[in-house]
């Protein structure tokens, strides 16, 4: 996330001609939802990793035999990040 932050700030400065006020505003707009999604997803993954009882059984049934493409689709929002698409429109 720190690496993405840095690149996004640089891209925002480029888009706003080094106007820091506008760039920081655009930077925040670009980062808040994504970084929160990463935190919330990590928390949820922790719950899934440590599931017990019936939650564990549900988890195993959900994931066992799942095709890689379904995992890839689910990871697209995270792994599809690039400098070219990092700024919010």
């Amino acid at each position, binding site marked *: 996330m720190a690496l993405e932050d840095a*690149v996004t700030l640089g891209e925002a*400065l480029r888009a706003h001609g080094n106007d820091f006020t506008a760039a920081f505003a655009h930077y925040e707009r670009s980062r808040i939802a994504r970084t929160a999604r990463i935190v919330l997803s990590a928390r949820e993954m922790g719950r899934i990793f440590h599931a017990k009882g019936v939650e564990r059984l549900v988890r195993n049934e959900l*994931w*066992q035999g799942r095709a890689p493409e379904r995992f890839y689709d689910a990871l697209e929002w995270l792994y599809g990040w690039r*400098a070219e698409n990092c700024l919010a429109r």
Partner: protein
Amino acid sequence: MNAAPLASPVLVAGGGIGGLAAALALSRQGLAVKVLEQAAEIGEIGAGIQLGPNAFAAFDALGIGARARGRAVYTDEMVMHDAIDESLVGRIPVGEAFRARFGNPYAVIHRADVHLSLLEGVQERGGIELLTSTRVARIEQGDAGVTVIDAGQEGLSGRPAMERREHLGRSRLPPRPLPAARRRAIQRRRHVPQPATGGVERQGRQRRRSAKLFRRHLPARPAADPTCRKPGSAEPPPTASRSGDGPSAAPRCSATLPTRRCSTWPRAPAWPWKTR
């Protein structure tokens, strides 16, 4: 748009991964940057981390893609096993199909190697001043810019890009100590603690008990084979096995990770990944 020149440099508080990455990104926009680091030397501690394709995209945008690629360890798949019955729960191949899909690989790396790659990028780039032994004590902001007061009371004029301690508060809490049982397990480089009673139980039972005891996952990573990592190597090897310059009989740095063993990373003292 054209970059408007600034009279004073951009100040970045902290020379860790975030600070150096910010310094590189700002420098690439044509800005003069000063990095303020409270430690006497720029360095990094930490453990192993995962790098998704997005991390490699960021490395490329910061101009250090080749350095980071040369230090990462590439895997063929991520697998998750149930800690109770050891059954395979999920398997995500991260080989060729994955790389084709996302345009970049999945890898693991030591945190210090991410930092080192950034530091080398900063040094190679030039125009970024690193001030060590400089702890930000206070920031005074005016219309024209800011003045950062370090603990030695020397004023530094500029514009802060990222100031964590002042704005976000307690961002550098000391790490919580690991529970004693986990510390011992890590010291022994074993997945499980010694059973308290008897020695007749099967290892599987022990593992199950320890999984309950620990209530956390111990990620398995490539074995602590120093030949797996090639520090300083700049070749980009997104291949499953380590790019061989040794004898062909050398142990393969298998990317199909051992899931039943928790082997430690050569330079990582512990895996303090705890979720709850």
